[in-house]
């Protein structure tokens, strides 16, 4: 008997080396698959939330307002969330490449697979209205931690992005009931970018891009805001009180 064979078999016989049971490997594989599933679900949730937050906050619409809008868009992107999503993708890539279905294919294919699945998952989640529901609960202050994140990314005011409802149309533009900032006067000029044949009407939900000075927005651009508009609970209450006062004074 040679040295290696003798040593290894002796170690086995004396119990210094023990065979790990099959369930150990089954459990390990099971946990790895559960890990991949959980990571994938988190990734889909995170990416769908990023898309939702960009749409709800109006950030996704501002590149349409020209070069300034594009620069603002790049600065306003939720880079931290995007970085976390990238880390999740990287982790998934590493996990998937531990299995033959992963490492047998070039990394680009598995990466496309992960990204493709994430896009599909994001589309499905957006169709369920899950984020709208959580956001609704958040603005009603019923979700302490998650609510903060949703409000933080979805409706925290940006200096130049204003979303609200047209209250009064006047000769300079219109009066906007901004969802967070309150009433603001919007100055619309010939240089203001807006969709062709777009006529403002009272009650329209719009996004106005431009700087605010003394409660006046110099509008660089105006577009209809076609998504559901979320207001913080304080603003909803304020609006209800105002409408009640107006009704009382009419009566």
């Amino acid at each position, binding site marked *: 008997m*040679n*040295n*290696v*064979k003798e*040593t*290894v*078999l002796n*170690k*086995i*016989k004396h119990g210094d*080396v*023990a*065979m*790990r*049971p*099959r369930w*150990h*490997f089954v459990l390990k594989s099971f946990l790895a698959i559960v890990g991949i599933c959980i990571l994938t679900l988190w990734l889909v949730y995170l990416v769908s939330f990023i898309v939702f937050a960009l749409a709800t906050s109006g950030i996704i619409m501002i590149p349409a307002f020209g070069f300034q809008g594009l620069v603002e868009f790049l600065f306003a992107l939720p880079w931290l969330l995007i970085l976390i999503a990238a880390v999740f993708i990287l982790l998934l*890539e*590493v996990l998937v*490449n*531990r299995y*033959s279905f992963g*490492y*047998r*294919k*070039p*990394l*680009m*294919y598995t990466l496309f697979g992960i990204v493709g699945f994430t896009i599909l998952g994001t589309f499905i989640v957006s169709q369920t209205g899950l984020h709208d529901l959580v956001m609704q609960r958040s603005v009603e202050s019923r979700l302490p931690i998650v609510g903060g994140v949703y409000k933080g990314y979805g409706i925290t005011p940006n200096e130049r992005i204003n979303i609200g409802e047209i209250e009064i149309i006047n000769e300079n533009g219109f009066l906007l009931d901004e969802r967070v900032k309150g009433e603001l006067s919007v100055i619309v000029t010939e240089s203001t970018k807006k969709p062709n044949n777009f006529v403002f009407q009272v009650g329209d939900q719009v996004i106005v891009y431009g700087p605010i000075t003394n409660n006046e927005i110099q509008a660089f651009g105006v577009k209809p805001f076609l998504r559901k508009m979320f207001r913080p609970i304080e603003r909803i209450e304020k609006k209800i009180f105002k409408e009640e006062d107006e009704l009382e004074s009419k009566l």
Partner: protein
Amino acid sequence: MQQESDETIAIHVQAGDSDAFGFLIERYEDKLKRYGRKFLNTKEDVEDIVQEVFIKAYTHIQSFDATQRFSPWIYRIAHNEFVNELRKKTRQPLGFFDPDTILPFVVSSETTDGPTEQAELKKIMEEFLIELDGKYREPLVLFFYEELSYQDIAEVLHIPVTTVGVRINRGKEKLKHLYTKKHYE
């Protein structure tokens, strides 16, 4: 037992026949030692590392799927042990993604070199293998010395089969370049 395939012997070991493991050691000890010496490029005895490979193989034998081939499975364990040893010696950082594994390559068929060319290449390898990067050295050793197929090498190294072809071809080119540089310049 000696007539039986590696996979059948592995099934015996899985069922608790630890003596059967001795047959697997007999079949793979020299191969793994040669692979270790070539890959690690050391004249030192790789016996301790190979012993560790067999101990790992025994402790993990229940994870071996007997419907697959045993040879790539044990070479994979050896690869991991040798890579760890190489990292200890050279302090190389962990390389998660190699550029060769990112893009798809055209499937390259296994080498069509004739016996004379292969013998000549082996001679060049003996002289210049030491100068090659590990990522080219390892598939060359597995293909020319251990006579593993591209498919098996892909399983050992956990890379696409097309990447195996690319690395072997590039490795051969680099060897020829080194040979020409030394003998004709």
